[in-house]
């Protein structure tokens, strides 16, 4: 019901924006001369926890709804320079995370605004080489993040193969606001990624891309407002059951201060007929927290008419839990502890449909997880190309 309202609002906002942009474009010819494209998108997603919060982590109410309007444009600065900009605002509404017993509501999380602004510069130094430089800023009530990146892509063998290499760094500053509302000062987190990717035309009907991404993170990697429950010191062992909270005390999530993550990913799309294509994509992920993830994603693309494409997809994703995750009460001697469901052991299935008609795009996806935390995603976008 909640998401239904968001979807209605999304369509309404994009529709009104579409009419306004069309009028501006017609009235101000010349103003938009250097724009390559402008896209307005409205995305929304919701996570459904049970009314008693029993899905996912039964200690927490993990209901969540996010509405994200965004404007994206490509602006031609010169023949060989292109500016890309992505400006997004997330409006987050989550259930107040009432903790077990007398814990107070999660500070700030019942209503929150995320702002993200990403700039990209593309420079085509030669006909077959493009350099990319990115700068981004994002922030919420409890963190600020600056991102920097650079990359190069090179066409080889007459455009049949393209290889690219990208490095990026994120520098986050967090206000450590705990679940109780206690402000524990501020801390930092940095992330550096190296991504190598290759695109290749396999034959006249098929092309593929695949790559490798390695990320190292350091600093404060816990989620400040996540709580865990652990055994009250001195409690007898025989008093414990799987969800035994009788003698549990709540504390802060504790996670290591470094993490090395890597993933291999790829997809191959094959044209079966002029109006029908299939794709198989996938990713293998591993990190030194013990999380391993495997996803497979078959897709089907069907051209229904002139510039109309229907996309159907299924995604299977399986992940193992982080070594520090438990859905039971922790020992009071545990060095690291998390009960964040997203770091747990579960399988998800996603089914989705997307439709593209001219400059309009819409997509609807439903994710079911084995821990019953299901998600619904919807986005609609309109693009003007100049």
């Amino acid at each position, binding site marked *: 019901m909640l998401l239904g309202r968001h979807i209605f609002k999304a369509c309404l906002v994009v529709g009104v924006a579409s009419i306004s942009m069309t009028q501006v474009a017609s009235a101000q010819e010349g103003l938009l001369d250097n724009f390559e494209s402008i896209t307005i*998108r409205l*995305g929304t997603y919701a996570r459904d926890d049970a009314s008693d919060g029993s899905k996912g982590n039964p200690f927490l109410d993990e209901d969540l709804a996010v509405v994200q309007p965004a404007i*994206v444009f490509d602006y031609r600065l010169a023949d060989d320079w292109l500016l890309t900009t*992505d400006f997004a605002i997330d409006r987050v509404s989550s259930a107040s995370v009432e903790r077990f017993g007398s814990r107070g509501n999660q500070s700030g999380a019942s209503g929150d605004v995320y702002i993200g602004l990403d700039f990209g510069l593309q420079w085509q130094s030669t006909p077959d080489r493009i350099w990319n430089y990115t700068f981004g800023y994002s922030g919420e009530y409890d*963190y600020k*993040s600056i*991102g920097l990146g650079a990359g190069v892509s090179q066409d080889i063998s007459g*455009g*049949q193969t393209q290889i690219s290499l990208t490095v990026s*760094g*994120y520098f*986050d500053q967090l206000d450590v606001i705990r679940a109780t509302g206690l402000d524990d000062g501020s801390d930092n987190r940095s*992330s*550096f*990624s*190296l*991504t190598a990717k290759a695109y*290749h*035309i*396999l*034959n*006249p009907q098929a*092309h593929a*891309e695949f790559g490798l991404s*390695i*990320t190292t993170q350091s600093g404060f*990697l816990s*989620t400040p407002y996540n709580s865990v429950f652990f055994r009250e010191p001195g409690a007898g062992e025989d008093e414990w059951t799987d969800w035994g909270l009788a003698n549990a005390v709540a504390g802060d999530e504790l996670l*290591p201060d470094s*993490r090395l*993550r*890597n*993933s*291999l990913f790829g997809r191959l799309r094959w*044209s079966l007929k002029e109006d029908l294509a299939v794709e198989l994509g996938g*990713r*293998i992920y*591993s990190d*030194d*927290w013990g*999380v391993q*993830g*495997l*996803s497979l994603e078959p897709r089907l693309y069907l*051209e229904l008419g002139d*510039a109309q*494409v229907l996309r159907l997809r299924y995604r299977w*994703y399986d*992940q193992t*839990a*982080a070594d520090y995750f438990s859905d039971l009460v922790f020992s009071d001697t545990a060095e*690291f502890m998390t009960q964040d469901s*997203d*770091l747990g052991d579960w399988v998800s299935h996603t089914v989705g449909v*997307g439709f*593209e008609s001219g400059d309009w*795009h819409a997509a609807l996806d439903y994710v079911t997880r084995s821990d019953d935390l299901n998600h619904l*995603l919807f*986005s609609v976008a309109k*693009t003007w190309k100049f």
Partner: protein
Amino acid sequence: MSLKRPFRFCPRLGVVFALAASMLPSCAQVEFYDRGALANPAMQFESDRTESHFQQKVFQSIEGASGGMGNTGGGGCGCS
């Protein structure tokens, strides 16, 4: 806090990477005039980059894994 465990490389990563790499030399040159099918709308990888950007950002925030097609390997958000 310090990390105690050594990094474990997943053997499946190596297998998939070897398979992917082995595809390259087996492919013959495809001339420009033979690439018509790849230009069809249904064959475009980046027909709507904003949609895939939105979706991958969501999946990154709700899964333990990150990185992948058109996505960063991590960072830039308040989540772990």
